[in-house]
């Protein structure tokens, strides 16, 4: 899949995944990988950015194996941002597919 396509929707996928339930980094990478094939390293900078912009907040929770894990939680601002992104995406995807349909006809 085109890398530029991925970059745009990655944010939306990450936000939606965390909205379902709080997740830690590795878990989130696996979740996102189910939807789009993405370089694992790039999720962390994205998480960092979204945290810096206060769409996520983080907390540590002990795990049975290994050190405590950093969980990400979607804030109210994050929910608003997610909704906005989804709206944009739906409109964008709708327009593009409508255009392609029209061209075929």
């Amino acid at each position: 899949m085109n890398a530029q396509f991925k970059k745009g929707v990655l944010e939306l996928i990450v936000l939606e995944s965390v909205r379902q339930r709080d997740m830690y980094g590795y878990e989130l990478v696996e979740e996102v990988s189910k939807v789009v094939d993405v370089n694992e390293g790039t999720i962390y900078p994205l998480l960092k950015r979204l945290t810096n912009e206060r769409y996520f907040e983080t907390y540590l929770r002990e795990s049975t194996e290994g050190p405590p894990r950093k969980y990400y939680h979607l804030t109210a601002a994050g929910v608003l941002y997610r909704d906005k992104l989804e709206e944009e995406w739906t409109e964008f995807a709708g327009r593009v597919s409508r255009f392609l349909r029209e061209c075929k006809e």
Partner: protein
Amino acid sequence: MDKMDKKTFLAELEKNLAVLQEDELRDMINEYEQHIDMKIQSGLSEEEAIADFGNLEELTAEILEAYHVRTDYASGGRTAQTETAGAKDPTAGGAAAQLREGSRRLREGCARVGRAFWKGVAAAALGIRSFLVWMLRQLCRPFLWARRVWEQSRRQQGQENGADKEEKAASGLQRTDGDGCRTGGLTGIGRKLYRGLGACVRWCLGAAVWCIRAAWNLCCAGCSLLAVLCGLVCLFILGMLVVLLIDGYPLTGITLGCLGMTLCTFSMAGLWMTLLLRGKKKGSGQNA
């Protein structure tokens, strides 16, 4: 480059991200370290786990982008880069220096705005105070005028009385019969009556002034109490809003508005309090 173990990968990453603050850097390194550990747990080798991250340079660039840092800055390590950048072009002394400079300028700007704001507030308060004092003077003017007229008329009366007395004394010298005595007694009663009336009027005036002052003070105290109550309510709401804001709710506007309301109500309370004190001083001045 492709075959790298965990230690070298993390060391490389740390070197490339040296521009970041210590705790942010630790945070990032920890995330990647944990990720690699979990990959190894799931059955991959160290090299495979790290190879999944792709090109290290690109990865670093992406991380730095998340921090809004110029990606070409950090790629050579901090110290070497700043030196060369400084030597090459003094205006572009590195992103970190620019950031520092920016924050310093911002701080100075904020301080300047704050100082100007307080100066403005002080000037406005002074203006309002002098205006109110002027208003009070204007309000008191009729009373003062009435008093002056009253005093003047009394003085004139006194002079006339004095003149009367002198005349009577002169006539008493000429006429030694009881007539003079009788007329003198009559004027004495009149004077007593007159004096009593004057005292009564003066007492009435004093009472009126006292009543006005008391009413004014009561009004001031009531207003300031009300303002303080409103201020406390605002403060409470502000506290809640701040907590929500820190939680990440988009309430900046409302919070700022509430802060303004709080400051406004408290300053209103302060204003009424000062008016209260002024009223007392004014009253004592009038009494003296």
